[in-house]
């Protein structure tokens, strides 16, 4: 049994006096794809934001490689890649500039690599066009280009299939699988019918659990 | 007693209105704040009580929330 990358123990999250989930414990092993499932309002996005460290209105324990995340925040962030609902793309900047800015605090990557990544997402010819001139799907692809050059072992992807066409989705699915085969761990939420062989599932209940504590 | 008579106490050599106005405003505001705070607590208690009674009612007819069907609602009035 390999050591889990990320371990959650007894997570409980409350939002506007409503318990989204509680006593939620799970481990994310390297080499797996896990899909977070649940109806609207069950806390999928909140869970991913909690794991990424964006939301800290929760109780419980989160461990990265065996020790609490809070004690090694920067090491954890360096090894985690989060792509959220909002793609994190500046409309005024070109895809190249956006990628440069996104990677600036992580590691230095030569421009040629960025170009290759953009080509890999089907944005050949758009590398130097301001992103506001691109479609929603193309903007999404810019942020997904990070996946092609990511060395982070843990990926947290929140609704990344939104606005992507069928071919793109198929390619992304195989990317996720390949990443898992390389030893990475992927956590996704999606309403798209994702079914990868060997995929794990994390099921959140319907919202509105509000009985006595 | 620092004053010779009760009327001297009230007028305070011309400073009476200022002094008494200050004391009046001070005690009225303080009392108002105390009253509001007490009333807010009572409102909160009542809200809790209503919540529990509603819950008790609901538990008798506990039905799971129906799944979304997205069926069109018939609005024709004929």
């Amino acid at each position, binding site marked *: 049994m*390999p050591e889990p990358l990320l371990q959650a123990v007894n997570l409980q999250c409350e939002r506007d006096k409503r318990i989204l989930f509680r006593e939620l414990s799970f481990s994310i092993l390297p080499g797996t794809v896990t899909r977070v499932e649940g109806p609207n309002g069950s806390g999928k996005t909140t869970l991913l934001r909690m794991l*990424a*460290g964006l939301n800290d209105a929760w109780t419980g324990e989160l461990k990265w490689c065996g020790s609490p995340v809070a004690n090694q925040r920067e090491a954890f*962030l360096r090894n985690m890649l989060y792509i*959220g609902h909002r793609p994190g793309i500046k409309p005024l900047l070109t895809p190249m500039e956006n990628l440069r800015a996104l990677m600036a*605090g992580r590691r230095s990557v030569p421009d040629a690599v960025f170009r290759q990544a953009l080509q890999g997402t089907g944005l050949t010819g758009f590398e130097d066009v301001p992103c506001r001139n691109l479609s929603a799907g193309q903007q999404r692809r810019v942020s997904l280009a990070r996946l092609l050059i990511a060395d982070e072992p843990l990926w947290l992807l929140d609704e990344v299939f939104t606005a992507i066409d069928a071919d793109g989705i198929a390619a992304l699915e195989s990317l996720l699988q390949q990443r898992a085969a390389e*030893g990475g761990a992927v956590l996704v939420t999606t309403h798209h019918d994702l079914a990868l062989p060997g995929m794990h599932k994390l099921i959140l209940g319907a919202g509105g659990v509000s009985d006595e504590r | 007693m620092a004053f010779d008579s009760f009327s001297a106490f009230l007028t305070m050599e011309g400073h009476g209105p200022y002094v008494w106005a200050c004391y009046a405003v001070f005690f009225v505001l303080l009392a108002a704040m105390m009253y509001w705070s007490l009333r807010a607590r009572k409102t909160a208690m009542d809200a809790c009580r209503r919540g529990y009674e509603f819950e008790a009612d609901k538990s008798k007819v506990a039905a799971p929330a129906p799944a979304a069907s997205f069926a069109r609602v018939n609005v024709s009035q004929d």
Partner: protein
Amino acid sequence: MNAEARPAVRLASSSVGALAAMKGVFARDMKVAFRQRQDLLNPLLFFIMVVTLFPLGVSPEVSFLSEAGAGILWVAALLSVLLSLDHLFRHDFDDGTLEQLVLQPQPLFLLILAKTVAHWMLTGLPLVVLTPVLGVMVHLDGNSIAILCLTLLIGTPVLSLIGAIGAALTLGLRSAGVLLSLLIIPLYIPVLIFGTGTVAAAAEGAPVGAYLALMGAFLMLALTLAPFAAAAALRISLSNG
């Protein structure tokens, strides 16, 4: 699947230095600002217009203007900085780049410091550059203008730094602009007092070295404390959003 079949996870341990990360944040903010050059003019125009209101609204007399001029320019500068603060984090928050900023494996307060420096270069510094022109228009003498510019040069970064806390606290709230002013104006008062007081002292021929040193101390205090407070506030606001 047995354990040997899995390739070992490789954890990345080193990221770029904090200075390079700050440079990246700064460069990006500058680039975005210059892609929308017309927006850079807004605080400047606002500054000029507020100053114009005083001769029109109070009195165009030389004696009044030369006495009140430094105060008018300081208040106008303060208001223009306040006006521009709402944008400090808002656009980044809306398009999701703020999340990515917070998730960089770097100390957040340094990244915020870089953003604040960029904000100051784009609003505070142009105001200082414009001050001599407006100083002449309100009949300040040369010495007063020089001192005024100096106080603004030290004071406007303090305004940006304290403002960053307010901008981070009000991020994502409705009517954030008004709320921001309510929170921040009381905190601006000491800087305003010393900024205008220094010019007044200079006009009376008193030495101003000590006052400028005190303003420098304000700047140092704001530089060391404000980014931490803004970082904490930003995490809270993001957690809410």
